[in-house]
């Protein structure tokens, strides 16, 4: 990272913000500090971004630095990449992660590889702002998560904050990074009324001052001794709710928030699982070849003997997201599914 500082416990004033507001605050501050930074994407200048990530930006910075594009993702991702190679610091808004399929080559074969293929001659300081996730009946092409699709290919750093504090800090981190970074926000966490009331645990108190959060450091939201609940983004909150109920049944669950998918805090994952001996991973991305696969693999290759019971994955099943509410509800990594998983690992074979 370019100018990453350790996580700051600033003494400055704090306010409670939504994740969208908190992320936007970081963008505003970095845009003010850096004239080479600009926003580019669809519906950001006049609309302020479909998810409100760019509200007011055009008024402050003008449409030269807040650029509405045609519906040409391959074109403007490529253009942003070239601008980054030439000294600019673009922020690319892609409202739904579901759309990466129309520009995936520019992302993974060019932007992500240019620093390496050029032997370090060209930096690509480019940050994607991407919304993900379902749960509001937007069906198969507007509800996906796709963490692993982006994380499997080398050269892309990916964060998925779970609350406003991390949304701001990780946005600062991404915007100061000299590499391709992806800041991903679950649509149901962002705090837009029309996507549901923000979860209280996602709307957190946020320092006014700038601060960064180092990549690859997971966050323990709740200490526990009997099992580890790993999540990221929305599943952190579902895990916390599950942990509450488990506590009332005398089960002590530790809730670990990955915060960044790449780099992945393998040490943090293993440390917690080694302590509790039991693992449940909750993720809204598809099950197979996904985030949950990698988390289980970490334990299997470090020391599977720490597991007192088989690990359980609570992921999106390997089917497209159905439109109809009862079908989608059944597929989401809900509190209920996490609870069921937790009970099964507690029952699981002791040694």
């Amino acid at each position: 990272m370019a100018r990453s500082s350790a996580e700051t416990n600033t003494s400055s004033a704090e306010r409670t913000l939504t994740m969208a507001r908190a992320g936007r605050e970081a963008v505003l501050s970095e845009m003010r500090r850096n004239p080479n930074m600009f926003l580019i994407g669809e519906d950001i200048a006049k609309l302020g971004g479909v998810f409100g990530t760019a509200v007011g930006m055009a008024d402050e910075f003008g449409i030269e630095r807040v650029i509405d594009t045609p519906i040409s993702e391959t074109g403007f991702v490529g253009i942003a990449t070239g601008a980054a190679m030439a000294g600019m610091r673009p922020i690319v808004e892609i409202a739904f992660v579901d759309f990466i399929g129309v520009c995936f080559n520019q992302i993974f074969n060019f932007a992500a590889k240019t620093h390496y293929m050029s032997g370090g001659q060209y930096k690509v300081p480019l940050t994607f702002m991407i919304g993900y996730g379902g749960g509001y009946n937007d069906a198969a092409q507007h509800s996906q998560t796709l963490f692993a699709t982006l994380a499997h290919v080398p050269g892309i750093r990916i964060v998925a904050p779970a609350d406003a504090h991390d949304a701001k800090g990780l946005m600062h981190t991404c915007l100061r990074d000299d590499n391709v970074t992806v800041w991903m926000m679950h649509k149901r966490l962002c705090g837009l009324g029309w996507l549901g009331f923000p979860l209280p645990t996602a709307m957190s108190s946020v320092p006014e001052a700038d601060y960064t959060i180092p990549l690859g450091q997971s966050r323990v939201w709740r200490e526990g001794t009997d099992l580890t609940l790993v999540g990221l983004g929305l599943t952190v909150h579902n895990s916390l709710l599950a942990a509450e109920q488990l506590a009332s049944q005398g089960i002590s669950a530790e809730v670990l928030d990955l915060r960044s998918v790449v780099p992945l805090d393998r040490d943090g994952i293993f440390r917690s699982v080694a302590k509790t001996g039991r693992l449940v991973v909750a993720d809204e991305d598809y099950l197979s070849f996904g985030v949950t696969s990698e988390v289980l693999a970490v334990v299997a290759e470090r020391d599977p003997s720490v597991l007192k019971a088989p690990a359980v994955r609570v992921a999106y099943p390997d089917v497209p997201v159905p439109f109809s509410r009862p079908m989608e509800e059944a597929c989401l990594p809900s509190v209920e599914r996490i609870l069921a998983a937790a009970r099964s690992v507690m029952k699981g074979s002791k040694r």
Partner: protein
Amino acid sequence: MRPEPKQRLWMYEAMFRSRQLDTAVLAAYREGKTPVFHMGKGPLPGEMHQSFGQEPCAAAVCVHLGPDDAVAAGHRPHHVAVARGVDLQRMVAELFGKQTGLSGGRGGHMHLYDAAVNFFCSGIIAESMGPAAGMALARKMQRKPGIAVAFVGEGAANQGAFHEVLNMVGLWKLPFVLVIEDNNYGVSVSKRESTAVERNSDRASAYAMPGEYVEGNDPDLFCVAAGRAIERARRGEGGTVLELQTERLQGHFIGDSSGYRPQDERKAMRDPVPEYRQRLLNETVASATELGALEKRVQQQVDAAMQFGRESEYPAPEQALERLYA
């Protein structure tokens, strides 16, 4: 020059049916979403892109189509589906996410499929162009009659698929018509802000095919131009780019206030459905009584479809895991 009276009545009926459906859907969509609008609540959740104002485009094209033809729509599909003759009850049931829906609730508003009339859509911009051209290719390879029509918005004309597909349509002379519904906006971005040229129909020459731009959101003018393009495709002379100037009377989706549109522009908006009704009366294509009867019949169909959709059962949760593979 005017279309046949039969065609004009057919178009009015298709436009009116779409309008009454969207009106009923709008009301149902609002249920459960007040006082605070929450997209995920109510009997009709999810994004909802309606067709108020764009009914002429679909009616004027589909009036020329028969059972052998294929039709693709995008994220704003209601008027196209209705004009194509997609089963209204099962379509509405799909919007409600019911088991009796076209896809048993798996598809939803942006993913309406009705194989019985060779209809499909897709929510990713310009993405249904290739598959539609593929249906045209299949007809050509199988030496079967029929053509394929894809409906996209003017914003889709800047997506790479537009270029790749039209080049192959031109190269292989596929029986295909691209209908561009130019409502001047892609969400909040106006055509002038997104498109280097004034008319996408002018881009047709880049693919060695004719392009035609028709102004005025006028069903009669649209109908004549569409007839030319479709006949040309049927004669095996290849594709056409047909760009139709239309009007988006509501926001991009329900909940969008269109605040980014200038006042005068919004004031100048005209509603093609009542206008066309009036023209049919003025030109004595039908009497008020005849139109009244038609409207009553259509309204009953729409009401019946809404009732069917509402009263049908939801699928069982575990059905989410079915139908992944054939």
